[in-house]
């Protein structure tokens, strides 16, 4: 059975299990730092993974992304400052509980809901992805062209503030992915005389520039105070205010189940992130509540809804990556970057070509859930107090310098440092112009795959473009992509009206 082999691989040496636990702790603490996104945190760690075994590298990155989803709820509950955007719904109910002196109860409900949602999502990934991959492996280049088209339209349409800015971000990513050598003739193109660009633009400087450096550039516009505010916690009235009782758990259980389902379903869709899932679940739980008047004033059910769905996306959003090779979120895009760096083939064949590694990553995910549950249940409050003492004005210079040392570490190339600076500015401008940096990076990663699939389709078939009409699966993806585009266009038009 795959997952047992995965555990065997994870415990085969000290490295994978050590980095899985370390990643969980880094994600938990980093996610709790307001202003430091999980994408930025993961991108910063990618250069370090160059020197690791592929399983240790993937375990580190995967566990950071998982535990940071929960980590973001700590400052949301304690300081009314969400550490990550997806913790905003938790903040609505969590902070009032802190003001009532029930911060322990709020934090513990957050960790219980997160772990439960995450566990379901991970099991769905473990048992569902391999099953779907068997079918995905039968798809040929025309189907992949259609899948890429569908993914770009959906990701561009949903991740941008408007369809146009989202699609422009995708086109920018695709254009820059063309730099390097032609995949079939091996002739150079768009290198503008730079020999360093013959292999294309390196992924690590792009990731660090767009996700991390651009964040520092954005912060440089304003002077920074402390990273977070002091908690305005009330005094606990009884021991029960600091823990989740059986009665509390029984009351929120139906919400937990429903929100986990919503989160997992939304997580499987490319481009729809956990921030959407937690607000959908929160609204749905509030709508179903018998006491909607208590919401917004410290309703435990609200925390359970937001956190369960938020974490239920984390495993599920790897399903499109592992079955179709389409990273549907920032975390999945960064994980696919690490896979590319370590020569791991992304897509349905991953379950045969990298069997031990992929099930090892799943096992790391389960270890991560257990680790952040234990640390989060007993240690969230001290972590929160520690974070509140670190001022942002100290954090950002350190992040800035770490980017340069880390990017130099990957290839010992000063050119990469310059490339990262340029992409830092590009990322900053994209943020200012409401373009989508995740859509840009996903297109940049998938661009070569699209070109290869498109040209293989035309090389292998004499009927030209008609081949797409002869393949029902390809047509289905084109139709889904087309409908998604029309739906989003009409949706934004009616919103404007």
């Amino acid at each position: 059975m795959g997952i047992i082999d995965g555990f065997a691989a994870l415990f085969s040496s000290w490295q994978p299990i050590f980095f899985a636990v370390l990643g969980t702790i880094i994600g938990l603490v980093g996610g709790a730092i307001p202003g430091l996104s999980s994408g930025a945190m993961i991108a910063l760690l990618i250069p370090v993974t160059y020197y690791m075994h592929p399983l240790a590298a993937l375990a580190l990155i995967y566990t950071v992304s998982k535990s940071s989803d929960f980590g973001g709820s700590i400052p949301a509950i304690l300081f009314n400052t969400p550490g990550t955007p997806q913790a905003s719904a938790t903040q609505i109910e969590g902070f009032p509980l802190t003001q009532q002196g029930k911060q322990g109860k709020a934090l513990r409900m957050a960790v219980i809901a997160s772990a439960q949602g995450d566990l379901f999502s991970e099991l769905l990934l473990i048992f569902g992805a391999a099953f779907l991959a068997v079918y995905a492996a039968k798809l040929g280049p025309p189907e992949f062209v259609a899948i890429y088209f569908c993914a770009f339209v959906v990701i561009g349409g949903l991740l941008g503030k408007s369809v146009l800015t989202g699609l422009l971000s995708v086109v920018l990513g695709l254009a820059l992915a063309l730099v390097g050598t032609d995949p079939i003739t091996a002739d150079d193109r768009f290198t503008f005389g730079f020999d360093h660009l013959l292999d294309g633009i390196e992924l690590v400087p792009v990731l660090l520039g767009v996700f991390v450096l651009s964040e520092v550039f954005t912060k440089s516009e304003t002077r920074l105070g402390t990273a977070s505010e002091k908690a305005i916690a009330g005094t606990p009235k009884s021991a029960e205010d600091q823990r989740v009782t059986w009665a509390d758990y029984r009351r929120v259980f139906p919400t937990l189940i429903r929100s986990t389902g919503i989160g997992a379903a939304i997580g499987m869709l490319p481009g729809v992130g956990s921030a959407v899932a937690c607000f959908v679940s929160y609204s749905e739980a509030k709508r179903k509540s018998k006491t909607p008047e208590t919401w917004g004033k410290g309703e435990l059910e609200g925390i359970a809804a937001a956190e369960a769905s938020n974490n239920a996306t984390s495993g599920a959003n790897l399903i499109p990556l592992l079955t179709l090779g389409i990273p549907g979120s920032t975390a999945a895009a960064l994980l696919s970057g690490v896979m590319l760096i370590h020569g791991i083939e992304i897509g349905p064949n991953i379950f045969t070509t990298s069997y031990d590694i992929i099930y090892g990553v799943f096992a790391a995910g389960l270890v991560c859930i257990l680790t952040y549950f234990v640390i989060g249940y007993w240690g969230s409050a001290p972590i929160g107090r520690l974070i509140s003492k670190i001022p942002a004005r100290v954090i950002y210079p350190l992040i800035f310098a770490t980017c340069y040392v880390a990017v130099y570490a990957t290839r010992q190339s000063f050119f990469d440092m310059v490339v990262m600076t340029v992409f830092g500015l590009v990322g900053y401008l994209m943020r200012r112009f409401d373009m989508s940096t995740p859509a840009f990076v996903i297109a940049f990663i998938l661009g070569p795959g699209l070109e290869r699939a498109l040209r293989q389709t035309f090389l292998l078939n004499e009927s030209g473009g008609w081949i797409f009409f002869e393949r029902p699966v390809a047509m289905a993806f084109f139709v889904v992509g087309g409908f998604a585009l029309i739906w989003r266009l009409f949706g934004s038009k009616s919103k404007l009206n």
Partner: protein
Amino acid sequence: MNELNPSLKKIGAASLVLAVLIPFAFQISEIYVDPSDPGFGAKDVPRLVVGLGFFLCIMMIWSAAKTKSNSGLNLKDGLRAFAKPFCLAVIALFYIWCVTAFQYALPTFVLLASLAWYFGSRSVRDVIIVPAVAVTLYYAIFFVLLGIYEEPGSILYYDSYGVSQLLRQAIGLQ
């Protein structure tokens, strides 16, 4: 962060993409095409991407022209807001040059100290001690533990690689 005027955002997004696509459009004609290559040739995917990009940029500019909103920063204030990040980028490029000239430790310490000052730190702890500890930590992680080679500086040269190798031997990594 002050938001830009909505139409300026759209023009900015289109300009950013055009800044990449225009040089690309001129380069497409130089791509070698194998005469026996059927179907989608070497030039066709770049043409498709650049053509789609131009179309979307035109749509964006058209949409900007139709947007009627006076909210947000105008062009002058917007450019003023961009000045700080661009200065930081110039500092970053100067830092890269300094690393090639003076190796890693000294420029990184100066960069960290000046950035801490720039971001509003004034205490000795934040401006001196934290940068010194960070430089030491970077050295320990990247050069000692990961064994990365540090190139000699063109102006100031010291054998930090040799030191890191000695430390690696001392802790049993080599």
